[in-house]
C-alpha cells in the first residue's frame, strides 16, 4: 500500500503533479470494541510543510468515517459524494448502509476514473449489523477488507507499533486509543512527511466519536517523561 501511494510513476500515465498529501500517516484497526482511526495532520509539498492542521478524517455520516491519503481534493470530494449516496440509500431502504456496501459504492465510483490521474487512498471505517467494518479503497481500484491498515509514507513505522501492540487479544478502549496514538506519534518521529497533531477517533455500535487531538510535540515530551 505504501508503494501505491508514494511511487511517483504509474508507467506511462500522466505526470503525478499531485504531491500534496502523499506524505502522511493514517491508520485504522479493528478491535473488540469497534474500530480505532488515527491520523496525523501534516501536509507537505516537496520539502515545504504546507500545513500542520489538516483534517485527514472525513466524517461521512454519524456512523461512517473515511481517511484521507493522496490528493486532498480527490479524497474529500469523493467521500462527500459517498456521503450523499449513503444518505439516499438510507432513505430508500429505511436502514443504514453497511460498511461493505459503502466502500463498494466508493470503489465503483472511482474505478470509472481509473488511469485518469485520481489519487486517493482511503480507509472506510464504520459499524453495521455485522459488527465493526474496515475497508481500504484506493483510486487504482483496490478494495480490501481487513483488520488493520496503515496508509502513507509513515505507514511502515506505524505498522511496527500496532503489530506489536495488538499481540494481546482483548484491548480496552483506552488501551486501543493509546496504541493508535502511539503508532502515529512514532511514525511522525521518524517520517519527515508526517507530523502536526494526532487525531484519534473511535467507531462503536452507536457511531463514531472523536477521542482526542494531541500535538505530536506534547506527546513526545509525555512519552519521554514516561521512559524516565
Amino acid at each position, binding site marked *: 500500500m505504501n508503494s501505491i501511494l508514494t511511487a511517483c510513476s504509474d508507467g506511462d500515465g500522466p505526470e503525478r503533479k499531485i504531491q500534496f498529501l502523499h506524505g502522511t500517516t493514517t491508520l485504522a484497526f479493528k478491535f473488540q470494541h469497534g474500530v480505532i482511526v488515527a491520523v496525523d495532520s501534516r501536509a507537505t509539498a516537496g520539502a515545504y510543510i504546507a500545513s500542520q492542521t489538516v483534517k485527514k478524517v472525513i466524517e461521512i455520516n454519524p456512523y461512517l468515517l473515511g481517511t484521507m491519503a493522496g490528493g486532498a481534493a480527490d479524497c474529500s470530494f469523493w467521500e462527500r459524494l459517498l456521503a450523499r449516496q449513503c444518505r439516499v440509500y438510507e432513505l430508500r*431502504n429505511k436502514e443504514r448502509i453497511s460498511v461493505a456496501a459503502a466502500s463498494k459504492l466508493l470503489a*465503483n465510483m472511482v474505478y470509472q476514473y481509473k488511469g485518469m490521474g485520481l489519487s486517493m487512498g482511503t480507509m472506510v471505517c464504520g459499524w453495521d449489523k455485522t459488527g465493526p467494518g474496515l475497508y481500504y479503497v484506493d483510486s487504482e481500484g483496490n478494495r480490501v477488507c481487513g483488520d488493520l491498515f496503515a496508509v502513507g509514507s509513515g505507514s511502515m513505522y506505524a505498522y511496527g507499533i500496532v503489530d506489536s501492540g495488538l499481540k494481546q487479544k482483548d484491548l480496552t478502549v483506552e488501551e486501543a486509543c493509546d496504541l493508535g496514538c502511539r503508532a502515529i506519534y512514532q511514525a511522525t518521529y521518524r517520517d519527515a512527511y508526517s507530523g502536526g497533531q494526532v487525531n484519534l477517533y473511535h467507531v462503536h455500535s452507536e457511531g463514531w466519536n472523536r477521542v482526542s487531538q494531541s500535538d505530536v510535540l506534547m506527546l513526545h515530551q509525555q512519552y519521554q517523561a514516561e521512559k524516565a
Partner: protein
Amino acid sequence: MAARYDRAITVFSPDGHLFQVEYAQEAVKKGSTAVGIRGKDIVVLGVEKKSVAKLQEERTVRKICALDEHVCMAFAGLTADARIVINRARVECQSHRLTVEDPVTVEYITRHIATLKQRYTQSNGRRPFGISALIVGFDYDGTPRLYQTDPSGTYHAWKANAIGRSAKTVREFLEKNYTDEAIATDNEAIKLAIKALLEVVQSGGKNIDLAVIRRNQPLKLLESKEIETLVAEIEKEKEDEAEKKKQKKST
C-alpha cells in the same frame, strides 16, 4: 407521421383515469388465479394450472419462478410480459448482491419491479405490463414476506392474497379463514393455500401448482403426488366436518 409515435400511450382521461393501466388490470383479471400465503416459517404460492393441450409438454411454462435463492414470484396476466419482468428482476437480484454484498430484501426487489412497471406507464410509445405479481420470500433476518404488485406500479405487503381470475372469491375465502391457527404449522399453511384455490379451480388437485419456501431453504416446487395427497387430506377433513355436523343435528 413519425411524430405520432412519440406520444405516450398512457395519458390521462378527462376524469383522471389512466385507461391503459385500467385495461391492463382487466387483462390481469383474465389470467389464471394465483394465491400467496405468508405463514410463520414458510411462504406458499399456489397457481391454477391451465389445462395443457395433448401434445404440449407440461413443464415448459411455469407460472412460479425463482428470482433468487430466497425469493420467488407468481404472476397473473400476460405470460410474455411476465417473462420480461422476471428476467429484469433476476438480474437486479444479482446486481444487488454485487454492489451491496448482501442478498435483496423482498421489499427491495418488489420496489424494483414496481418502479419498472410504473416507468412503463409514463413512457413514450410503451404500454404498461399486463401482469400482477405475488412476490414471496424471506429477508436475511428471517422474516417471511408477501408482496403484491399491479400494472400501475403500486405495491403492498399482504398476509395472504390472490390475483387473477376469481381473485375476489379467493380473497374473501382467505379473509374468513386466515387465522393464526390456520397458519400455525407449515402443513396447515400449505393446506390453506390449496383450500383457497379449490374454491375456484373445479377439477381438483391436477390443476394446481404449488411452491413453498421455508426459512433458509431454497424454493421447492411440490410434485403432483404430494398435492394429490394434501387434496385427499382436505377432502377427508371436509367429510369429517360434515359428519360431525350431522351428528350434532341428530342428537
